[in-house]
């Protein structure tokens, strides 16, 4: 008999399941709107030109393959902190931060979660917005923390339940951990406006909460890296010492290279050194030291003026295409004769859109039209192209009229 007889079959990943079913479908009009990866207007993966140039530079330099330090590539982590905080940030210039390289967004989140579990003794509770990225919950749980929620998305309006969020946050026990999506909220695409962020910062400060920002879409949301980092920077300026996880999967298209970073804003540089030493102690028994390739590509792009400029143009291009598809989807829905209010599609931002479609409607889209999305009605706008937006609008109209 086996040691593993009692091991249960793990449930299939809900998002992967969408892609699996999509692959099996033989309908030529099929659309995969579950995919969390950017596609160009031909529905193809897009390797950024600045990435190709950085890769060519790397290839020509013939570097060795020696281990990185546990905390990662220094040029990368410094540039990553500067990108998030802004070059004029007092926190950045004073050096009162530590940034370690992480395995893209997930790995960075997990390092942070483990760090908080070990060193943030005030609370075991992490407050997530309702809803949040599906993987947040198991990440924090596996790190040994508990999950709570605050109101965020209003399904009636398909937009932010700001008063609900403020009410709930005002009641969070002091010194709990609150997670905020810096921009392009996943899965809803609903972000607070700047005035709302100001109020959120005030209440969070009043409740003395530890703020954990997840920024997976800087630049990818609005097309402007500074605008997308506004909330993060505002909170820090208000004296809130946040922790932050960043991903370069989407904004540099480095998905499989796993480039990311975890940052702790500290009281001073000396504290930052101590925090760094503890982060390394956490990382070493996880995977020893991080993979170089993605971080080096990102570092070259961020630190080479010409490539950085090119990157800003390309990331804006991706954001613009998504914004364009949102606009086209809404106008196509109108053309189909839909009487529903689809404004939320253009109000929302980033890769994902919470359509407001009900499970039965989603079911019909999958079965009758071969349009694949997750049951919660979330679609990835990245999967929409000028070639299929008409079909999508038609199908949505059919199931909602």
């Amino acid at each position, binding site marked *: 008999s086996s040691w593993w007889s*009692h091991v249960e079959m793990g449930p299939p990943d809900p998002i992967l399941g969408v892609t699996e079913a999509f692959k099996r479908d033989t309908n030529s009009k099929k659309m995969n709107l579950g995919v969390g990866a950017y596609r160009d207007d031909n529905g193809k993966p897009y390797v950024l030109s600045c990435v190709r140039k950085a890769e060519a530079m790397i290839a020509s330099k013939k570097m060795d393959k020696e281990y990185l330090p546990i905390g990662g590539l220094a040029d990368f982590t410094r540039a990553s902190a500067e990108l998030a905080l802004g070059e004029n940030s007092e926190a950045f210039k004073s050096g009162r931060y530590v940034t370690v390289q992480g395995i893209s967004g997930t790995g960075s989140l997990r390092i942070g979660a483990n760090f908080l579990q070990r060193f943030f003794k005030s609370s075991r509770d992490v407050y997530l917005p309702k809803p949040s990225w599906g993987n947040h919950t198991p990440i924090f749980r596996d790190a040994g923390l508990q999950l709570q929620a605050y109101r965020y998305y209003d399904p009636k309006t398909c937009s932010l339940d700001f008063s609900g969020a403020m009410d709930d946050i005002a009641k969070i026990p002091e010194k709990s951990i609150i997670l905020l999506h810096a921009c392009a909220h996943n899965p809803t695409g609903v972000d607070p406006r700047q005035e709302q962020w100001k109020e959120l910062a005030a209440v969070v400060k009043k409740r003395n909460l530890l703020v954990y920002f997840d920024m997976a879409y800087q630049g990818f949301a609005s097309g402007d890296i500074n605008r997308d980092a506004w909330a993060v920077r505002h909170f820090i300026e208000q004296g809130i010492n946040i922790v932050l996880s960043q991903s370069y999967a989407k904004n540099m298209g480095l998905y499989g290279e796993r480039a990311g970073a975890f940052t702790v804003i500290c009281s001073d540089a000396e504290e930052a050194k101590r925090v760094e030493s503890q982060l390394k102690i956490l990382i070493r028994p996880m995977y020893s030291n991080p*993979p170089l390739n993605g971080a080096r590509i990102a570092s070259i792009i961020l630190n080479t003026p010409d490539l950085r400029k090119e990157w800003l143009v390309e990331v804006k291009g991706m954001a613009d295409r998504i914004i364009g598809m949102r606009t086209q989807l809404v106008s196509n829905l109108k053309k189909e004769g839909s009487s529903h209010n689809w404004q939320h599609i253009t109000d929302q931002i980033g890769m994902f859109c919470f359509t407001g479609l009900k499970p039965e409607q989603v079911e019909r889209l999958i079965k009758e039209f071969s349009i694949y999305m997750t049951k919660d009605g979330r679609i990835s706008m990245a999967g929409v192209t000028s070639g299929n937006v008409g079909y999508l609008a038609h199908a949505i109209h059919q199931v909602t009229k």
Partner: protein
Amino acid sequence: AYRTDEGQPWVLPVVKKVEQLIANDGSLNHEYLPILGLPEFRANASRIALGDDSPAIKENRIGSVQSLGGTGALRIGAEFLRRWYNGNNNTATPVYISSPSWENHNSVFVDAGFKDIRTYHYWDAAKRGLDLQGLLDDMEKAPEFSIFILHACAHNPTGTDPTPDQWKQIAAVMKRRFLFPFFDSAYQGFASGSLDKDAWAVRYFVSEGFELFCAQSFSKNFGLYNERVGNLTVVGKDADNVQRVLSQMEKIVRTTWSNPPSQGARIVATTLTSPQLFAEWKDNVKTMADRVLLMRSELRSRLESLGTPGTWNHITEQIGMFSFTGLNPKQVEYMIKEKHIYLMASGRINMCGLTTKNLDYVAKSIHEAVTKIQ
């Protein structure tokens, strides 16, 4: 890390070639790998460990998880064992680590949640070799179902491996006492120069019907240190069990790094799936192993010629990157302070640090340390 005879890092020629192929392949992109990793990498990495003719592969009862280096593979295996081995979430299951061992082994299992981490006898300082009796005694006394971390070859830090006969004795006790073998294989090919020879112990355990884990690293044998290429090979009783195990490992991976980095896995997969590149790789590996073996024999012969007190056959009997010289802490201090030769307080030296240029100096320094300091 390996060093050439010039004391430099060495990017394997086959790796340079394959990187060029990858760079020139315009069809490749940077999309996410599946959670468990690149399929061609996983299957071939496990095949390297278990052998082409492995009964476990033929019977379709193996699984693989691409991991971030050997460390990542160990961690995923440890996390899984803590959740699912010997009951559910049984943090009390004893985990046995050799004395001494790679220092990170302890941290991996502690951070995975195990509460009872013990050592098993391994290094006999007096005879400068394996304390087999101590090891077997520890296994006899270990609670049933205990987990044992075994170094597949080139034990780190002692360089001392059990002989095939000794492995057979170890396996017999483990089978009888229901102990779980978790192999750490960081040096396959790099130790003896032969992939098959270095995998003998793992394959023997498989042939004896064990269910086991094997954490593989491609850091040293491919020189891909900073790309973090590793693989956790799972051998189970049958396909159904392995499938369920993998589905749970997938959940663990998802909250640790979501999916693994693609660059290193692509390099290894491309190499292992091309007969020509595979042959070239084996040749590159042998080059590294042979240089280390040469340094061992050269150091030993110099020490014996100098008449350095003590016996020095352990230098050539030990295998892999490291050697437990037998120098005591005071002698080590002398080496560092007076001779500027850096080694660990344990007397462990990295054989890769030896070159034809420094052999004489190192031998003379050891001779001085041993004769001047007791």
